């Protein structure tokens, strides 16, 4: 796993308060209790801080899974 992807996974774990046993790569929005609409905004904020970027509203709305998050963060020039 690349360093940026480790950082993205760490952002998910921190924002959603996930245990070490959770497979972050399979997560989907509302697929687990922790990833609700309130936590989603915290997740966005944590990702933005981790990668020093600001996501467009369309990307905030469209971040429906971990895979989608990877795709979005790549758009902002992060080599994931």
């Amino acid at each position: 796993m690349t360093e940026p992807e480790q950082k993205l996974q760490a952002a998910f774990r921190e924002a959603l308060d996930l245990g070490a046993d959770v497979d972050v790569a399979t997560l989907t929005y509302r697929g687990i209790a922790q990833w609700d609409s309130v936590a989603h905004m915290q997740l966005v904020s944590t990702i933005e801080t981790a990668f020093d970027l600001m996501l467009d509203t369309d990307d905030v709305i469209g971040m429906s899974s971990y895979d989608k998050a990877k795709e979005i963060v790549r758009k902002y020039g992060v080599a994931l």
Partner: protein
Amino acid sequence: MIGWPAGTRLLAGKTAFVTGASRGIGLEVATTLAALGADVALGGVRDPDGLARTAADLAARHGVRTLALPGDVADPAAVKACYQAIFKAWKQLDVLVNNAGVLEGALIGMISDELIDRVLGTNTRGAIHHLQGAARLMARAKRGAIINVSSIIGVRGDEGQAVYAASKAAVIGLTLAAAKELAPQGIRVNAVAPGYIETDMIKGLAPEVHARRLAQIGLGRVGTATDVANLIAFLASDLAAYVTGQVIGVDGGMRL
């Protein structure tokens, strides 16, 4: 006009964004916040060169950082660009003054769709877009103050101003909802409701209309942009740390 004591740096270390800052209340608010030590971004749509000159002047006079962010608040792409620019320059935003607005009247029965689009597009949609952009930046730091500029007409209504009243009443609803939703993130949201304020907007009124308005004001004088700016500076500051979800009139006791 009474202002903050000279040398007061009430807002030192804070970054602020004032929309509609090219003239009137917005310009006075931007000037007051800069005088109190805040770094200030100025939004405006009419005169980009003038806005840049004002920003440079405020920076020179008050020793603060400024940004000129020309663009129409009714254009979501332009609003988005403002927050990207603030993020790039400052990485944070502590204060949003959601001030940009248009005042256009029409009697019921003569209200066109174009007028509705213009007034709600700027006063309501624009305010929502800006609140959303600002909240995103403020949420990172878990602090912030948003001050929405409504109007006594949004609170009380006025004849010939159904659309404007609706647009400014919507700003109050936005304020109350956002204050609840954003409080857990440390973001305060309040609204100010100015009354009859001496700006370019009222200069064209007929003398008899002006006299009638004046007679409605308990304190017996027209308000100034400084009266409004002083209240906004208070709400932007930590002096108002426990104030959120409020709609505060600054109208001299005006009765509509």
